[in-house]
């Protein structure tokens, strides 16, 4: 092993920092999945008939489908009968203030560095904290309500705004879209709903912290964001999960709908438990995220920093239906130890003069595998569609892998599609240069990696960018020998 590899080897063996389990009584149902379970979930949530029908259709479709196997991933077979499909922290009554929240729950948030009390005062951030499957507390609601903005848990939206939910649910991600989306549509427990009315610019970043907690509980969240004409919203999603041995399945669905001239920015920092150094445990993250630029001149922008999970299968996509609409995808995906990530995007150009931009930065360390998979599709009527894709890979050490799978389907001759790709390694000389200026090796690697990812990190809201930078560094840290 060369000296550099030795350094990288030790540097990349950092244990997960947020590994702890909260002991909260959970209201769970029996393991396993069948039509009765789907009905039970719906009943527990006192849902209307149309939603139960949606779930049942999805469930029946799911039974006919097969788990996708085209990704560059080794996915252990998942026993869907060994998963608990509903779990809610026990709560006797509606909570009026944070004082009434289970102190242990608050403590968990504190360990994660999410002091809810302070969040309330923090200017500009409203938090809808999701612990397991039920929203525990929503803040800043009143401020938002003044502008007619709806930001609440999905269940609450079903109760309070059934017409909106019914109108848009499944628009971007139909229940039959793919195996995991169908599963989610059948058993989703909760999530977030957001509606920005016509002409309203959401004055603050809307932020959701997700957390997986109860052991053996698959997490199936559903997020629906609707931006009406001429509106704007920036939405943040961030997550961490406690350490445990059994693999945990996570199959969320996020749908975004942007109407005429509306703009939605969706940013994610994902830090779920990646498994230990030997590849034991960790979250399986199979997410379906899609936005539809339905209106002319609308814009949807995905920014993601992915550092966690044992397996990541995730392709935030944009369907550019409206003329002159724009889709963007900025991604940093870091894999270490035995992690596997197959992530990328789909940009579907349907409207005329639509534009899309893809900036993907993969970072692989340890014995991990990191793949970019991207599809740029131009429909026949999408005159003058444009796409630019930049896909870079950075390798730390020589036992990890980086792979790029760009696909293009173009049915319009006026389209201009450009693709650039690079692969590089952190060089021993770069690290030595930093060392020579007094900067230690861990900090040097963190600095170099952050520099490499800067173009994407710059797209994140300020406070998130700082968090993401730390996360990249932490994910690579270890004891330097």
């Amino acid at each position, binding site marked *: 092993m060369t000296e550099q590899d030795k350094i990288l080897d030790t540097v990349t063996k950092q244990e997960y920092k947020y590994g702890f389990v909260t002991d909260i009584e959970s209201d769970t149902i029996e393991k396993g999945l069948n039509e009765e379970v789907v009905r039970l979930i719906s009943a527990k949530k006192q849902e209307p008939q149309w939603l139960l029908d949606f779930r049942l259709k999805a469930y029946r479709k799911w039974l006919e489908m097969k788990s996708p196997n085209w990704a560059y991933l080794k996915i252990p077979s998942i026993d869907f009968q060994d998963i608990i499909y509903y779990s809610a922290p026990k709560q006797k009554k509606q909570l009026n203030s944070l004082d009434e929240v289970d102190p242990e729950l608050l403590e968990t948030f504190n360990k994660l560095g999410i002091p809810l009390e302070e969040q309330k005062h923090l200017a500009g951030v409203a938090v809808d904290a999701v612990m397991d499957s039920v929203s525990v507390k929503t803040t800043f609601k009143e401020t938002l309500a003044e502008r007619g903005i709806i930001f609440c848990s999905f269940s609450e939206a079903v109760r309070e705004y059934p017409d909106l939910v019914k109108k848009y649910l499944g628009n971007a991600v139909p229940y039959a879209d793919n195996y995991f989306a169908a599963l989610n549509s059948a058993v989703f427990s909760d999530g977030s709903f957001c509606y920005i009315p016509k002409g309203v610019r959401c004055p603050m970043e809307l932020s959701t912290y997700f957390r997986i907690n109860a052991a053996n509980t698959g997490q199936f969240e559903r997020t629906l964001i609707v931006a009406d004409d001429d509106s704007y919203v920036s939405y943040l999603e961030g997550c961490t999960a406690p350490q445990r041995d059994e693999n945990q399945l996570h199959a969320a669905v996020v749908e975004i709908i942007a109407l005429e001239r509306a703009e939605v920015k969706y940013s994610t920092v994902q830090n779920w438990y990646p498994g230990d150094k030997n590849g034991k445990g960790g979250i399986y993250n199979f997410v379906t995220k899609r936005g539809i630029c339905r209106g002319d001149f609308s814009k949807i922008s995905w920014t993601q920093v992915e550092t966690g999970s044992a397996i990541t299968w995730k392709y935030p996509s944009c369907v550019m239906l409206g003329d002159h609409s724009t889709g963007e995808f900025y991604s940093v995906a870091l894999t270490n130890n035995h992690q596997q990530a197959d992530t990328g995007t789909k940009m579907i150009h349907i409207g005329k003069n639509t534009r899309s931009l893809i900036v993907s930065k993969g970072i692989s360390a340890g014995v991990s595998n990191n793949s970019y998979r991207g599809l740029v599709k131009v429909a026949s009527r999408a005159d003058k569609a444009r796409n630019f894709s930049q896909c870079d890979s950075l390798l730390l050490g020589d036992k990890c892998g980086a792979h790029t799978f760009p696909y293009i389907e173009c049915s319009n001759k006026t389209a201009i599609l450009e693709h650039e790709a690079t692969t590089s390694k952190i060089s021993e000389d770069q690290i*030595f240069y930093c060392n*020579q200026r007094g900067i230690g090796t861990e900090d040097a690697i963190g600095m170099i990696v952050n*520099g490499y990812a800067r173009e994407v990190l710059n797209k994140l809201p300020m406070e998130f960018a700082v968090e993401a930078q730390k996360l990249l560094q932490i994910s690579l840290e270890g004891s330097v020998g």
Partner: protein
Amino acid sequence: MLQIKNLHASVDGKEILKGISIDVKPGEIHAIMGPNGSGKSTLANVLAGHEKYEVTEGEIFFEGENLLELAAEERARNGIFLSFQYPIEIPGVSMVNFLKTAVNEHRKHKGLEPLTASQFLKLMEEKKKVVEISSQLTNRSVNEGFSGGEKKRNEIFQMAMLEPKLAILDETDSGLDIDALRIVAKGVNTLKSPHNATIVVTHYQRLLEYIVPDYVHVLYNGKIVKSAGKELALELEKKGYDWIKNES
């Protein structure tokens, strides 16, 4: 300040330095000259602690401490600065972020509080004037897209920021025009004090007109074949390196 005793070093199993001894005292300037491939950069890198080079024999002491026991970053924090012959590009890492981290690591080592952003920027403005480096360069990523001369000037700028006790300049003059050369020399001379020392590695005696050495050592084939006062540089210039090669 610096004692190098019978230093042998090899890279990839090949011996490059074959018994070097140099003694540098505070306030002194030593020039190391020699033809290409004689081991000048190897010596500079060994002093700075590059792990690629293996010291097989000999000792190095810096201010009484065994330098060979220290990692590269510890040597840097103790006051050893290397101006690289080929400075490295670090894309996406801003000069400000890079230098602020470096300066604060040095301060931490001395038990000082880190500089705040505004204190740091003030220091940077001050030092920028010394080496006449433009904000256009310092606002970019570390060495990214810099010309050869700009990289060299940036090395001297970093040296000014870090105020080392021992500066090793590895062919900082090569690729510089006369104006840039004068500025580099000014930077070195401004920093000169009875407490610090400089080792100037160079090919030509040109730089030594501006930075006047107390000693000149000629390195050839991994050995110091001649040491004398500054007049040796002139003699070398006149007679060429063949003279040394023939003598040794």
